[in-house]
């Protein structure tokens, strides 16, 4: 019986439009910003981008694509992440922004 309720609770949690992430933070829909990053040729080194952007509270996903040399940032819908902040963090991670698409 206990297992049933736990399963039901899990289903209801993930079926709802808002859910809690691994930090226990509840959030809903996400916006995606695609950032072209110059110099991103090494997986080992590109870890710095994840480290830098996950420090921001409204960033829920950092998806690196080495083929396209892009980084997709998933941020909480309705929150802001300015081009200037993106450029600053990319520079701090050791790279250069090529373009930003929203």
């Amino acid at each position, binding site marked *: 019986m206990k297992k049933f309720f736990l399963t039901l609770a899990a289903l209801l949690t993930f079926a709802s439009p808002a859910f809690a992430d691994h930090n226990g933070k509840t959030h809903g829909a996400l916006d995606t910003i695609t950032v072209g990053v110059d*110099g991103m040729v090494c997986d*080992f*080194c590109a870890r710095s981008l994840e480290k830098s952007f996950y420090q921001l509270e409204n960033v829920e996903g950092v998806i690196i694509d*080495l083929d396209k040399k892009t980084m997709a940032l998933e941020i909480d819908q309705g929150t802001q992440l300015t081009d200037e902040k993106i450029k600053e963090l990319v520079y701090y991670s050791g790279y250069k922004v090529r373009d930003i698409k929203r």
Partner: protein
Amino acid sequence: MRFLLFCAIFLLPLTAHARPVSWPGGWMVMLMNDTASNGAQINYTLTPKYALGIQHEYFREEKFNMDAATLDILLKRWNNTGSQANLYFKSGAGIAYGSDDTDPAAFAGLEIDWEDRRFFTLYENRFFYAGDQDKFIKHKARLGVAPYEGDYGDLHTWIMLQADYDAGADDTFSLTPLVRLFKGTTLIEAGYNLDGGVLFNLTKQF
């Protein structure tokens, strides 16, 4: 002595497998083992251009240790769409000590590298001084090729050839084929010197 000088070339340069400056707030732990020495380094990146660390090395044949504080500086980085190049200044200062003597020790050198997802090149020099314990000037070059282009998060593989030159050693020139593997924040290198020495390095980023 000649053998040690020749082999010692692997020690300090091997701290540079992973780039010596990572990201602000990032820690790096490196373990280096080769035919001549065993070493370990921990460094912390302060800014996008500066990293501070501590380094310990033991030169097995000459039987001396070196403990040093290190400062690595990214002098210039060239970011292009499909490639990246870097120029670093690497240095350290501390003490070298054997069973009897203790001497001041210092080293400095430049490293320049270029890579895309298929090819890797590197040149590095190092000026090393440790009083009566040892002193040398060494040069290192590497060429690498990746047999495949892995996606982010995959196991990445590089086949590399390292050439070392030390004008002060009897064996002035040496070649070491090696394999570099990395996945996530862990990097491993293993090689076999054509003169019979084994090379093994591990780098972990935090």
